[in-house]
């Protein structure tokens, strides 16, 4: 297997800083913002984004967690077998601007599932998507509003995001089987 590193810890940190500024600029500040991270690594990125916004703007933006297992479309095909984890959105999202956070945007199917899940919790003013990596190959009409890095990839490759909170280090790699 061929592995190349595409982001290191500093680059990940800078990308989150830039995304935080872009979120604040687009939304004219942090009022009415909430952040929801998709399990597992989207949650850590969501927490980092919230901390960065606090640093810049001095406002605490609440962070929720969504588990999309119950909304997935790849379960019946046997593609995945996930253990259901808790969804924790301890605040109302109605009339809020929701920043949905995930690590890698690929087919868009996870995002579709997450949006369906969010809608069961209320009627947000809007939902914006922030991802660390956009690797292309969409299968649904979904795009990122904020992306840490665009990485063109082939179908044969996989993108692996490692974050300290889960993997003991910050790193993004592209792995190819060739």
């Amino acid at each position, binding site marked *: 297997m061929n592995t190349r590193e595409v982001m290191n810890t500093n680059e990940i940190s800078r990308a989150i800083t830039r995304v935080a500024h872009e979120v604040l600029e687009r939304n004219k500040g942090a009022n009415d913002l909430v952040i929801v991270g998709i399990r597992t690594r989207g949650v850590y990125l969501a927490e980092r984004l919230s901390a960065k916004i606090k640093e810049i703007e001095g406002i605490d933006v609440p962070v929720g967690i969504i*588990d999309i*297992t*119950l*909304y997935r479309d790849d*379960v*019946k095909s*046997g593609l*995945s*077998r*996930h*253990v*259901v*984890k*808790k*969804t*924790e959105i301890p605040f109302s999202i109605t009339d809020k601007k929701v920043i949905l956070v995930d690590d890698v945007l690929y087919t868009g199917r996870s995002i579709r599932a997450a949006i*369906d*899940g969010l809608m*069961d*919790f*209320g009627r947000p003013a809007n939902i914006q998507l922030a991802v660390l990596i956009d690797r292309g190959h969409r299968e649904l009409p979904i795009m990122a509003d904020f992306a840490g890095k665009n990485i063109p990839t082939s179908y044969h490759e996989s993108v692996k995001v490692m974050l300290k909170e889960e993997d003991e280090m910050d790193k993004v790699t592209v792995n190819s089987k060739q």
Partner: protein
Amino acid sequence: MINKLKSKDLLGIKDLSPEEILLILDTAESLKEISTRDIKKVPALRGKTIINLFYEPSTRTRTSFEIAGKRLSADVVNISVSSSSVAKGETLKDTAKNLEAMNPDAVVIRHSSSGAPYFIAKILECSVINAGDGAHEHPTQALLDLLTIKERKKELKGLKVSIIGDITHSRVARSNIYAMKKMGMDVTVAGPSTLIPVDIKKMGVKVFTDLSKAIEGADVIIMLRIQLERQERGLFPSIREYSRLFGLNVEKLKNAKEDVMIMHPGPINRGVEISADVADGPYSLILDQVTNGVAVRMAILHLLTGGV
């Protein structure tokens, strides 16, 4: 960590491994939140059909399975025997085969004969879930009891549990003893000696015929419903005597631990096995058990019929 159950069916706790029990409890803890939403429904089992086939009366278990299925978007059909072809003499096997011809994904069965769920599980390709069979097992009750205890105590291992009442005829007791021993808990049973099986010690439990000894030092006390029809068969002299010796009241609780949990699978006979002030008191988790019943049954339905 495992991510699925080995069998297509849930027939008894005896067949489950400790890892499988933990998977069910963890899944139930995750699914519990859905019941607190404004929109209490997720699409996980959309297009799945679940049949509740109840040969014995039930309020809690049947409703709980029905709500659990509906919260996961499954279609749930209830069959109660009094209004079905069973009343016309159809055999269990024929009923099961006919129901299967309508392509359900799971059949939830309660039956007065021990082993009835095993019997139809062998015939049917769909999942079969035991909702109580005779004096044999009631696995979802034991799982919801474990969930209720785990929520409060975090760790199950090493906890002391006392189960009080008619142990011989109780499928709740049997399933709980299997489950609790698998999870490394310390189980004591107590009741009139006529209502305790002779070889119960083989299941690894302590036996008392004195209530006060059984509740001393217990972290959890599970009171079983005394089935009033048993008295007619002479298994204990009178309801009043039973209540005096084995009924739980505030006075008898004085010897119990300060943070003791009181549970009861329901329906309760107020003033017989449990006094009203205990059933409604601060130590009682009887209604938490009912809430957790929905979460545990959602977990079972999801693990057995969702995905793969």
